């Protein structure tokens, strides 16, 4: 098989062999429904509940605080919409605070709620993508019911100060939801230490299967069930349990968390080396994001004068998989709302590529990627009208200076 370098681990990760091994019995001899009372059911139930323990252990909570969902998007919808339906009829607490750089599953859902008459504050970010805690604090009003902030941004890798936000939220008596999809396995995620009320995860970002997610709900807190019907998940999420997805999620989170410290360090070295070379060897490039507060596996770099998709396709042809902006909005042609919120100028906003490293990534991969990038960027700039204009102007100016 053709050699491929997969640098799109923020979009999704392949299933790791240990996870396949864990789920394999449930794709073959064990086909039962965890809700069934017979042996087939009990085997499924036991494995399913074991996964719940693995998750609880991984994020430091109780098993009864875990609800399994089909993905983080569903979990995020559940919190935002379920939180609100808990308020039905009450006028108070109809204000949500979130940020301008959330994943669409929060961002678009909050926008939709806004249209429905709820009040939403989207905290702005600076050019590095950082939010202002003082502004967050002062945005909290009498009717604020929920703060929803992601832990790690999926486009820039920026880490948000959730612990500080947790403190503010609990002081003010406001519920706090964290989208920790890009954080788990990359930085420590401890719900007790953070002090949040809701937290969401999705298995396919840490080498589990697509189609399984987690909603942590602090014991005593409540959201209205989002999907209603059967009694599954203690009536909090109806529908036959996704045994394979959840068993895989359990195994995957156990491994991700136990390997987190070491793997983060390994990737940091590779990422930093890669960025150093790119910034030094390819002109007119820069890091998009917060240089001082990023996870170690994401590198978002803008290559001025060229449009990102062209770079993506050329890299793909060379065997390297990357993404432009958010993979989730890649059906879209607009620059992402994240980049827009960072007030990056329009031309540059189309020029950024996200390299996201993962378990398979080696130093050779990164060296190879730099080499290929150098050629590709040079070639694409060679017929970029924007580059031409820039160079011509620079030339004129330096000519003027020389005269």
């Amino acid at each position, binding site marked *: 098989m053709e050699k491929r370098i997969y640098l799109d681990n923020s979009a999704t990760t392949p299933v790791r062999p240990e996870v396949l091994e864990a789920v394999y019995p449930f794709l073959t001899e064990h086909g039962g429904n965890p809700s069934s009372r017979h042996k087939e059911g009990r085997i499924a139930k036991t494995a399913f509940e074991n996964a719940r323990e693995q998750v609880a252990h991984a994020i430091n909570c109780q098993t009864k605080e875990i609800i399994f969902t089909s993905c983080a998007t569903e979990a995020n919808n559940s919190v935002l919409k379920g939180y609100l339906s808990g308020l039905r009829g009450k006028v108070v607490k109809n204000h949500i605070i979130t940020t301008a750089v959330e994943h669409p599953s929060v961002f678009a859902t909050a926008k939709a709620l806004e249209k429905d008459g709820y009040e939403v504050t989207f905290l702005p970010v600076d050019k590095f993508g950082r939010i202002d805690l003082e502004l967050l604090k002062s945005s909290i009003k009498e009717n604020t019911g929920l703060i929803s902030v992601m832990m790690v941004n999926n486009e820039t890798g920026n880490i948000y100060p959730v612990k500080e936000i947790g403190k503010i939220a609990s002081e003010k008596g406001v519920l706090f939801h964290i989208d920790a999809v890009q954080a788990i396995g990359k930085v420590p995620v401890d719900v007790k230490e953070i002090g949040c009320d809701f937290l969401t995860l999705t298995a396919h970002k840490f080498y589990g299967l697509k189609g399984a997610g987690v909603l942590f709900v602090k014991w005593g807190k409540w959201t209205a069930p989002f999907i209603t019907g059967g009694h599954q998940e203690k009536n909090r999420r109806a529908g036959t349990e996704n045994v394979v997805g959840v068993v895989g999620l359990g195994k995957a989170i156990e491994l991700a968390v136990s390997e987190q410290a070491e793997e983060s360090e390994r990737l940091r070295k590779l990422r930093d080396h890669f960025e150093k070379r790119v910034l030094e060897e390819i002109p007119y490039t820069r890091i998009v994001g917060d240089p001082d507060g990023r996870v170690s596996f994401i590198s978002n770099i803008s290559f001025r004068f060229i449009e990102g998709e062209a770079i993506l*396709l050329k890299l793909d042809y060379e065997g390297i998989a990357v993404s432009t902006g958010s993979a989730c909005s890649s059906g879209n042609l607009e620059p992402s709302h994240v980049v827009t919120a960072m007030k990056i100028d329009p*031309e540059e906003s189309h020029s950024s590529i996200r390299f996201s490293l993962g378990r398979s990534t080696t130093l050779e991969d990164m060296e190879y990627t730099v080499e290929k990038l150098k050629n590709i960027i040079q070639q694409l700039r060679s017929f970029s009208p924007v580059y031409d204009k820039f160079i011509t102007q620079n030339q004129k100016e330096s000519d003027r200076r020389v005269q």
Partner: protein
Amino acid sequence: MNYTEKVMDHFMSPRNVGKLDTYNAIGEVGNASCGDIIKLYVQIDENNIIADISFQTFGCGAAIATSSMTTEMVKGKHIDEALKITKDQVAEELGGLPANKMHCSNLAADALHKAIKDYKAKNGIV
């Protein structure tokens, strides 16, 4: 959703790239904020034939491929014939484009029409 083989061919090995040494018509469309800028350099001879043409494009794969395709389609053609070429024809010649690319990234024909119309105006051709 995916690009056809022909699109990929024109994207990977674009024809007529860069800036002609001599040209007597230019057409530019698009802007950076929408993510696509296409600039065509055209050399029109005394018989109003497109003797040579080249492009510079800032844009996605489709923008580059349609630019390349357009230059191929019109090189050697009379400008009045070239004016008849539509964006849909360019897309068709490439074996189709993804729906979301039809509108925004398929601008080369517009740039060409602009170049020719300017040339005609400047040279008093009707």
